[in-house]
């Protein structure tokens, strides 16, 4: 091997090393199927050696007796935010506890399981389970809160941080009227349904299918911990808050799942030309949003998006020609109705719409969720 070949080999090895490291970090947060084979249901029993209670996913480590000796396995669970909502705490399990886990094995053959349920061995006591059900609304709807000037409050009327919106009725962007089987991350049950999700152009349909066939593992929200953009901001169970700054005629959309990112929605009638210095030739991650009230509905027009993100769970593509009209209505204190019209002639054959509702989570602050390295 000559010097040049050795150098090339080193660079190649370095490159793949960085790539592999990046991939392992990136998959710290992911659609389940991207990392685990849900068709590989397994059950195993072992003793807890530790609990790593952190975002984006908690891990429980267990020692499992096998013919080859003791093996240490990692059980991956939901984030502490979701686990807390389901009554779990970081001390719910102690080292030495014997547990039985049911779940799915990792695709790469490593000793990891996605934990569907976790019970104390020899008992029916479930120490970990997550309900995906949306909590029921109050039997008697509470009236929609208003500001002193009579306008609808999109959050708390005092502007404080004592509530947020969560539990979207849909977690995947699909054209209104289409009934398509998929999981909460947007993974289609049948790839043949892809063309029915939205009126995709041929290239966009092929790219969407490609992402689906790769189990959504290339999603930059998971791969690079990017925040959700576009309508995806409102399809996370980690919630969001609409903070109205009436004095400065703007609304801040604070994204619970977005590493403390925020989007500004201007209410002062400005042109969608970006900063006052003018940068409308520079597309932005959240685009440029301005809004007005149409009766009791907040209408937001946004354009000027870049193409750095997936704007939906499931991987529907968009282009920088995307323009959105979003409509927020609060028919009662605990319900927020959301409707969006997607107009992107770069990726779709026509404009199309989707809608869903969200529920008010009162008495709590917006969860602090960082994609990586955030302990709570």
């Amino acid at each position: 091997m000559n010097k040049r070949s050795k150098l090339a080999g080193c660079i190649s090895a370095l490159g793949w090393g960085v790539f592999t490291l990046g991939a392992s970090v990136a998959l710290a947060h992911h659609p389940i199927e991207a990392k685990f084979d849900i068709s590989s249901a397994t059950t195993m029993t072992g003793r807890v050696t530790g609990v790593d209670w952190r975002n984006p996913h908690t891990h429980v480590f267990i020692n499992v007796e096998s013919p080859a000796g003791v093996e240490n396995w990692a059980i991956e669970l939901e984030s502490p935010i979701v686990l807390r909502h389901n009554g779990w705490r970081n001390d719910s399990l102690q080292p030495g506890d014997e547990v039985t886990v049911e779940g799915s094995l990792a695709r790469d053959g490593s000793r990891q399981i996605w934990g569907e349920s976790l019970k104390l061995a020899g008992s029916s006591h479930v120490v970990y389970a997550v309900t995906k059900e949306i909590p029921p609304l109050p039997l008697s709807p509470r009236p929609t809160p208003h500001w002193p000037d009579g306008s609808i409050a999109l959050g708390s009327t005092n502007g404080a941080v004592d509530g947020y919106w969560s539990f979207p009725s849909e977690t995947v962007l699909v054209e209104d009227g289409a009934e398509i089987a998929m999981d909460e991350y947007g993974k289609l049950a049948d790839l043949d349904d892809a063309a029915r999700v939205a009126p995709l152009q041929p290239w966009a349909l092929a790219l969407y299918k490609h992402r689906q066939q790769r189990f959504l593992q290339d999603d930059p929200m998971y791969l690079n911990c990017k925040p959700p953009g576009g309508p995806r901001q409102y399809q996370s169970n980690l919630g969001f808050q609409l903070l109205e700054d009436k004095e400065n005629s703007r609304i801040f959309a604070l994204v619970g799942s977005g590493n403390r990112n925020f989007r500004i929605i201007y209410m002062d009638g400005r042109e969608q030309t970006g900063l006052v210095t003018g940068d409308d030739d520079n597309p932005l991650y959240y685009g440029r949003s301005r809004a007005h009230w149409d009766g009791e509905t907040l209408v937001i027009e946004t354009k000027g998006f870049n193409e750095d993100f997936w704007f939906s769970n499931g991987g529907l593509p968009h282009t920088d020609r995307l323009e959105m009209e979003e409509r927020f209505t609060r028919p009662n204190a605990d319900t927020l109705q959301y409707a969006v019209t997607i107009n992107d002639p770069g990726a779709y054959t026509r404009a199309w719409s989707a809608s869903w509702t969200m529920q008010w989570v009162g008495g709590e602050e917006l969860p602090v969720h960082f994609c990586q390295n955030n302990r709570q």
Partner: protein
Amino acid sequence: MRFTFKKIIISALAAGLISSVSAQEGHPVKGSWIGEWEGNALGESVLMVMDWDGEKITGVINPGTDDLQIDSATLNPDDWTIHIEAGDYVIDGTFNRLELPNRSITGTWKGDNDSGNIEIVRQ
């Protein structure tokens, strides 16, 4: 050999330095592409800029020097191949690593009198 060596370098950098590449999750052709067309009299380095306006692919090869405007370009999403015609040149290539921002196109180029391999990597 030089071409092979450069190809290895390009592949290694493409695989390893993902964070240095600007994201592009929209149309796969959009962006700046740098690479080599082997044996081209214009020089083996090639730079392409391509865009998608919703109906057609536009772009230029070696802007600022050769300024070869792309006359037509067709993407076949069934197999992710692309056919580009620019002046006297015809390029046929296939997308690799489609899912990554640093995807590449490999294939062949053909001019009036010459032809060879081409590999370009999105930056």
